[in-house]
């Protein structure tokens, strides 16, 4: 057991390390001199030199690489090219905003998807089932930013039910401190992106649970439960659904990681100040330390998600450990 966990941990660490290295060299090897975007060639040569030394760009590549690893180990992401402030300072709050947007809506999508999938799969062949399979697939096929725009068009502009974007009403919490997360205003702003993310991600757990339940029909333990005289409801919830929870539980962490990566677009539409929006803005400013840090944090969340999925799987289905 423990050797399996250690191996998985080691693999995750290796994955992250490879990504760090890849990032470092990508930013320095790809066509175009990244220093040219940081240090304007229009500056005086002396000013250029000073900036190079400030960002450590005068050292040989391997030395820069070692410094980069050392800095990351102490969570020092360097200074933002755009604001000049430490990247780590700006990025912490952004990470929280992304998590607050993505996690609750994904969990809602999974809970809703599993129950609806289980009930419809159990009754099998109903009209509602066919319609919902189609609708959820269509919703998942639409670009999520477009769905968001249509939702804003309808709910925010036409009906004036929700704000158009942002995390709180601008100016309401000038310090952006912890109090804003406990305000009704925050929930009001969260509602629409939460709703969109929930229905957008509904399809996968719904189909997974549905097909999983379909597969249990005719299994001996289901027949046995029926013979014991349990009601249909009890058979479904206590026996069929419980057994189908395995794939649901194990895909959740992984899709969470993917949803964090996908939040780039939804954050952009709703001007939600999370990691994704930060990254898009930073790319616009050619703020490479910021892009790098945002990317690495998103990657770390994705890797953590896959790791959790594997560990959860090994707990729920211990057979996997022996393979």
């Amino acid at each position: 057991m423990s050797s399996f966990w250690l191996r998985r941990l080691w693999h995750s660490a290796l994955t992250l390390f490879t990504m760090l290295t890849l990032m470092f060299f990508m930013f320095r090897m790809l066509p175009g001199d990244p220093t040219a975007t940081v240090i304007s060639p229009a500056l005086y040569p002396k000013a250029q030199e000073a900036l190079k030394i400030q960002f450590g760009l005068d050292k040989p590549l391997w030395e820069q690489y070692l410094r980069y690893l050392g800095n990351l180990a102490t969570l020092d992401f360097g200074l933002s090219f755009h604001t000049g402030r430490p990247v780590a300072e700006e990025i912490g709050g952004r990470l929280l905003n992304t998590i607050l947007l993505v996690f609750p809506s994904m969990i809602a999508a999974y809970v809703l998807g599993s129950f609806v999938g289980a009930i419809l799969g159990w009754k099998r062949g109903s009209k509602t089932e066919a319609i919902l399979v189609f609708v959820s697939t269509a919703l998942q096929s639409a670009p999520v930013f477009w769905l968001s725009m249509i939702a804003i068009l309808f709910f925010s502009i036409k009906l004036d039910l929700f704000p158009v974007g942002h995390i709180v009403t601008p100016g309401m919490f000038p310090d952006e401190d912890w109090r804003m997360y406990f305000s009704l205003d925050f929930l009001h702003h969260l509602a629409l992106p939460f709703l969109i993310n929930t229905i957008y991600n509904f399809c996968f757990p719904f189909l997974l649970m549905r097909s999983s339940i379909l597969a249990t029909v005719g299994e001996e333990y289901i027949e046995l439960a029926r013979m014991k005289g349990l009601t249909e409801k009890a058979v479904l919830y206590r026996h069929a659904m419980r057994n189908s929870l395995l794939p649901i539980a194990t895909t959740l962490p992984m899709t969470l990681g993917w949803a964090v990566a996908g939040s780039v677009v939804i954050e952009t539409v709703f001007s939600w100040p999370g990691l994704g929006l930060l990254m898009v803005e930073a790319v616009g400013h050619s703020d490479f330390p910021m892009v790098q840090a945002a990317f690495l944090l998103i990657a770390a969340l994705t890797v953590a998600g896959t790791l959790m999925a594997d560990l959860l799987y090994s707990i729920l289905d211990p057979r996997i450990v022996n393979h």
Partner: protein
Amino acid sequence: MAVMDILRKFYQATWATTGGRISLLVFGFCVILAIVGPWIAPFDPMARNYDAAGKLLRLAPPSSEHWLGTTVFGRDVFSQMLWGARPAMIIGVLTAVGSVIIGLNFGLIAGYFGGRIDSLLMRITDILLGLPFLPFIIVVLSLSGRSIWTIVLAMVVVLWRSTARIVRAEVMSLRERQFVAAARTTGASDFDILYREIAPNVLPLAMTSITFALAWAIITEASIGFLGFGDPDVVSWGSIIYEAYASQMMYRAPWWVVPPGVAIMVLVTSVYFIGRAYEDVVNPRLQEGR
């Protein structure tokens, strides 16, 4: 030819169900649109249109002349829609085919030879699995210029991983089968066994991942266009939505934002249903759940 054979079976399998048939027709329609769209477009998609009095047609609602109205720059939305099918289709198909060809070969080699090659290749797919898809593509595009080819390349680099894993698992079980052993006793080389005996048997499975890669690629292309990282010289459905969004006028002009989103939705939905209809036939295990 094995490939032709598989394509015929693919067509027969999906055509057999109503959903599959409708989806194939929709997809076929989009393919035709991608080919002839720019020729039948009534206006130049980038041209500014003026009314009879010589005034720029800003955000004109749909009319008999401009079927889907005009943009804030006076451009004809219907013509832009017709032009936008092509990049979606080109990027989608190239990415899907490219990633499946690479994934298929990696999967074949890893599954057949096993051992060190296998663990190395699986390590690589593990790393790619942890790579956040969209942010990675944004980083690549921001560093190396925004062209259709960079978008395709960046997507292929990430997407081949899933095909490779599916194919590898299948090859590992096929490797032990009798027809492989039989080929080996006749003195066939590893290369022959892999590509003449095993490959035709995993191709149907690879075809299912082509459809899912296609769906992913079309959505991602639109997302990239929407974020403003698309090829600036290309009118795509994603870039139409981006322009509408960036102009901040979209909420006054639904005819500008609704059509490109609907087009993407219809195209990708059809691709998903084609994939599922085919998957049910190729892999009956999936039909009963996993």
